[in-house]
């Protein structure tokens, strides 16, 4: 799925969220990526909103997750109020907390996240459960002004190993990531 995004990202800032370990392997603009892993759960969308408001000339794409968003549903109202035309909010829904062993999120499988986003005031919100349809529509989604919300059903990649025994995928520290992104955006370190 991320490979499809790669074809459309151009010079957008990408916040890959929990997909960071896959995104860093295929990204062609790592200087414009913010692979931060999980600084604290629930914050990816608001971080993306901050960046989008700060850099209105550049598209900002965030890969949120349903577990993160459920911790911070109110951000949908804040995004809708601020109306960042450059923010594209993709939410990957695997219906569980995959990184803690695959326990279900509350009411998994029965939540219409796109309806919640629309109800909060996002002008465009949609949901996809197959790659083919997403692939067909993605160019159009990113071509139209935001804020746009897209819920994507994905298969979970369950992790059970203790945190300290999981393979490390981050090649830069979080502070380095932000420093290099600021540099790429022409902001003094």
């Amino acid at each position, binding site marked *: 799925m991320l490979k499809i995004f790669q074809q459309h990202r151009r010079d957008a800032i990408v916040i890959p969220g929990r997909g960071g370990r896959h995104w860093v392997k295929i990204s062609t603009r790592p200087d414009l990526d*913010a692979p*931060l892993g*999980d*600084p*604290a*759960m*629930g*914050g*990816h*969308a*608001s*971080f*993306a*909103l*901050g*960046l*989008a*408001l*700060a*850099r209105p000339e550049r598209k900002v794409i965030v890969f949120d997750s349903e577990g993160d968003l459920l911790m*911070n549903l*109110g*951000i949908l*109202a*804040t995004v809708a*109020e*601020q109306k960042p035309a450059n923010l594209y909010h993709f939410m990957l829904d695997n219906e569980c907390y995959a990184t803690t062993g695959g326990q279900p999120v509350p009411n998994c499988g029965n939540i219409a996240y796109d309806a919640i986003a629309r109800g909060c005031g996002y002008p465009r919100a949609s949901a996809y459960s197959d790659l083919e349809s997403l692939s067909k529509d993605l160019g159009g989604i990113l071509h139209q002004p935001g804020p746009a919300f897209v819920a994507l059903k994905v298969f979970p990649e369950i992790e059970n190993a203790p945190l300290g025994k999981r393979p490390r995928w981050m090649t830069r520290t*979080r*502070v380095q990531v*932000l420093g290099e*992104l*600021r540099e790429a*955006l022409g*902001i003094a370190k």
Partner: protein
Amino acid sequence: MDDAYAAPPSPNILLEQLLKNGVTDVVWLPDSETNKLFLLLKAEPSLRLIGVSREGPACSLAAGLYTGGRTPVVLIQNTGLMECGDSLRGWVLGLNIPVVFIVGYRGWKRHGVTQDTAAIYTEPFLNAFGIQYYLVESDADAAHITVAFEESKNKKKPVAVLVAGE
């Protein structure tokens, strides 16, 4: 007692300090201690107000704004400061984000005796996170706000300004 020390900090002086320190965005959630300041901020055309519905997201939002080159300030109450503990850890301290938190100090009493647990836990909370803070209890303390901004910028850390009003 000098009258200047008897009156709580005036919202105009607080706004003046924010503008003096180049603030561009105010990430806020209402509180009773800083409500009058909010009304002034809303009327100030050079500032963007970004309302959140919970304080934790204010931390990551401020981190995004700073990364994009803005100078945000977070305006919340001490109750909300405690709510945002994990976000403060991960999105602000963990990313070296220089941001000043203007915190309404609910329950604060000049002579230190309070029954309000929001006030009782505020300074121990900040100390636990290693966050420097400055008390602003009257206009005479307004310069502490500039000190907070300078310290935050120089050390790339969050610094809190506790706005007290009995």
